[in-house]
């Protein structure tokens, strides 16, 4: 099986662990991931905060390149990139005049035909149905599934899961043997793109999420977004300082947990790259 993939910038740098676990899973399930050739940054928070046309043009270039190369479906593991790409499709479908303008800017023929797949949809469609007999080490842990914002909102655009108390990731985790806890902070914002420019705000918001997961007895948080991961994991010293605490709760990508359950080593799924030590193997 072959499918397109848009890794996005984080997966080549600070979320290398996520990238390794996505590709390791794909390999284990005989899925060939084909990168969108010469892909560019989606523009992230900065572009839509500062320039609307740029924030649509950068994703449109990526999507038009995928179309040109016959990639009808692309997996977008980063929830933030996924959001920028799908919002662009939505905006340009709604407004043909804007679509023409963006095509003029990028000098390409963007049509909007690519089907975008988030990581949980990919797992649901390609991993879960082939799981039988593959689980060698059930993920027998209590987990708090953290969806963050962009996996579920804006819900009218994404058309995916419910906006309050979503379940898709919880169901995936239960299928590999985990006990998914009731977790009311699962869609509260971690502080997102303010990580560098307002670290105190991020420490406060991310700390609330960790505190609640710890309070509910979670062994680990499960995430599907590199931005959430870096705020919850890499920013842990700032969080502990802000909250005068010593939270040691690890933060794992959903793909890492599945990888361990099917017998991949911690190293194969990039666990050694985390800032907060993961005592789960």
């Amino acid at each position, binding site marked *: 099986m072959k499918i397109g993939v848009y890794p996005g*910038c*984080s997966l*080549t*740098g*600070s*979320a*290398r662990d996520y990238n390794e676990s996505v590709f390791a899973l794909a390999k284990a399930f005989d899925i060939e991931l084909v990168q969108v050739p*010469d*892909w*560019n*940054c989606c*523009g*992230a*928070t*900065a*572009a*839509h*905060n*500062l*320039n*609307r*046309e*740029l*924030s649509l*043009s*950068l994703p449109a*270039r990526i999507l038009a390149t995928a179309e040109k190369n016959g990639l009808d479906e692309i997996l977008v593991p980063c929830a933030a990139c996924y959001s920028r790409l799908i919002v662009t499709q939505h905006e340009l479908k709604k407004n043909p005049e804007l679509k023409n303008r963006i095509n*003029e*800017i*990028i*000098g390409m023929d963007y049509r909007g035909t690519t089907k975008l797949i988030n990581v949980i949809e990919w797992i649901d469609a390609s991993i879960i149905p082939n799981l039988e007999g593959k689980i060698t080490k059930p993920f027998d842990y209590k987990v708090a599934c953290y969806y963050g*914002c*962009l996996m579920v*909102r*804006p*819900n*009218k655009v994404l058309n995916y899961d419910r*906006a*309050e108390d979503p379940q898709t990731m919880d169901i995936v985790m239960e299928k590999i043997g985990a006990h998914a806890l009731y977790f009311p902070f699962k*869609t*509260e*914002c971690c*502080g*997102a*793109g*303010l990580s*560098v*420019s*307002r*670290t105190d*705000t991020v420490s406060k*918001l991310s700390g609330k999420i960790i505190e609640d997961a710890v309070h509910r007895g979670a062994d680990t948080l499960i995430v599907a977004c590199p931005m959430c991961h870096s705020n919850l994991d*890499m920013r842990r*010293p700032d969080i502990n300082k802000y909250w005068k605490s010593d939270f040691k709760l690890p933060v794992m990508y959903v793909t890492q947990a599945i990888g361990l359950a099917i017998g991949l080593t911690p190293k194969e799924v990039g666990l*050694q*790259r*985390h*800032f907060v030590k993961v005592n789960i193997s």
Partner: protein
Amino acid sequence: MSHSEHSIERDSLAYAIEKHVEVHAQKCYQCGKCSAGCPVAEEMDLPPSLVMRLLQTEKSSNDDKVLRSESIWLCLTCEMCLSRCPMEIDIPSMMDYLRQRSRSEKKVNPKMKNIVSFHKAFLHSIQYTGRLFELGLILDYKRQSLKLTQDMMLAPKMISNGKLHFIPELLKDMPHITKIFKKTIVEGGSK
């Protein structure tokens, strides 16, 4: 034509918001759910529902307050307000418009300078390499914000964890990216 269009002041910010991003501030009936759910409302000078109210007055002094507020830059685009709004008012899209308008009118709140510097440094990085070069971004941000010692402790561990590149990954078709930036940022005057 929506009911609000024919009554709204043409030089008001609310009118511009309708025209550019099709968001109708007049639909807000002040239930306050946006402010209740907003993760940064307590840090804002104007919580989202108050921004809506000020826009509804269509007074230039209130429009000015909105464009000079900290709130528009603190907004995280988490989309919680839109998700819970009973009138489905797209506050996040409106915030994007307000930020751009605030910059073009040179009304950015001075306390928000670092947030804007970070966004600018981020876009610089993409403009020159096509993809985010995290090390370059941090150095550029430090230069602009003068926060020279911030996050010094992170770098060594990022390097040992293999999470920091020293050399940017350049796109093959960089002229294409340059052209996109030229047609949007440079010609649009939002550099």
